[in-house]
């Protein structure tokens, strides 16, 4: 299953801007996503922004990343610019929201 553009973007950013290697960066983001009930394959930029603001900072600090707060502020400001690509199939949330209006 392919991971979303938002997931790939944040992992690339962490790998580039911290001392975390690729495996550590992806693992840290996956852990934060799991705690937030989000999935790497479906997470969208708007959800990633909230994740960065509310969860990722703590995860990065726990990994020993210095000045995690400033890094997260910068990432949260930039994440909105990600091109999420063309909309794929409806997410389960979209379907269940629509079913409630039927």
């Amino acid at each position, binding site marked *: 299953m392919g991971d979303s553009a938002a997931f790939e973007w944040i992992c690339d950013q962490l790998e580039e801007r911290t001392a975390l290697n690729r495996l550590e960066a992806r693992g840290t983001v996956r852990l934060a996503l799991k705690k*937030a*009930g989000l999935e790497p394959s479906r997470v969208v930029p708007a959800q990633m922004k909230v994740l960065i603001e509310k969860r990722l900072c703590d995860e990065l600090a726990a990994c020993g990343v210095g000045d995690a707060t400033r890094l997260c502020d910068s990432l949260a400001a930039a994440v909105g610019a990600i091109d999420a690509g063309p909309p794929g199939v409806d997410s389960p949330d979209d379907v269940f929201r629509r079913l*409630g209006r039927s």
Partner: protein
Amino acid sequence: MELLAAVGVVTFTVVALVIGLRMLISWTRTREVTELLVGLPLLCLGPLAFPSGIIGFRTLETAPQVAIPLIGFAALMLAIGGCCPAIFTYRVFRPRSGFARGAAIALPIVLALDWILRCSTGGFDYRSIHYDSLFYLPWILRIAALSWAGGESLRYWRLMRRRLALGLADPVVTNRFALWGIGIGCGAISTLLALLSIVLTSDAVGLDARYSLGISAVALISAITLFLAFLPPQRYIRFLEARAESA
């Protein structure tokens, strides 16, 4: 006892009829296949399978020429009612899974072949039925399909609850995952209860009264959860929103 057992079944039939029709009407407007995959099984399991099955089994001795086609019709409705939630689950929760796609394709094929085989071999004449492994196959497949549908929805509800804590989910939509999971999961439990009654008594015509009562209770729970999922009263919506705000 019979009257008590009828309460749950009748309630489920009415709720399934109303929601099923609403979903089908919505599908004619939106052409979204998910609406069809929710509406069709509710109509098949509730207002179509229950009455035809009950009348079929009650009249099997006195008017078999009417009863046997009715039982066959009920079996077809139960098969459709088992297939649609499985296809829905594949499309909504596991669209990229090869295993889920395989299950969603194989299940209707196997159940259709089983139904055709029974039609051609008198398999709906329950007076002379053989309780062999072929008899139990559609029962087990339906239980598996409905359990899968319920389980996937409840799994996603757990994810949604975590999102809710971050303000990333709507409390009413989150709750709908739980309600659909319980409602459709009840279908698996009631099928299992019917199967247990048949296995323990070797009699599919007249279900044991205790199991009938159990099926009725489960049908009542299913009716309540499906009603709250798709026709929630404003008061219930306000309750969910207030609870989410206070959390």
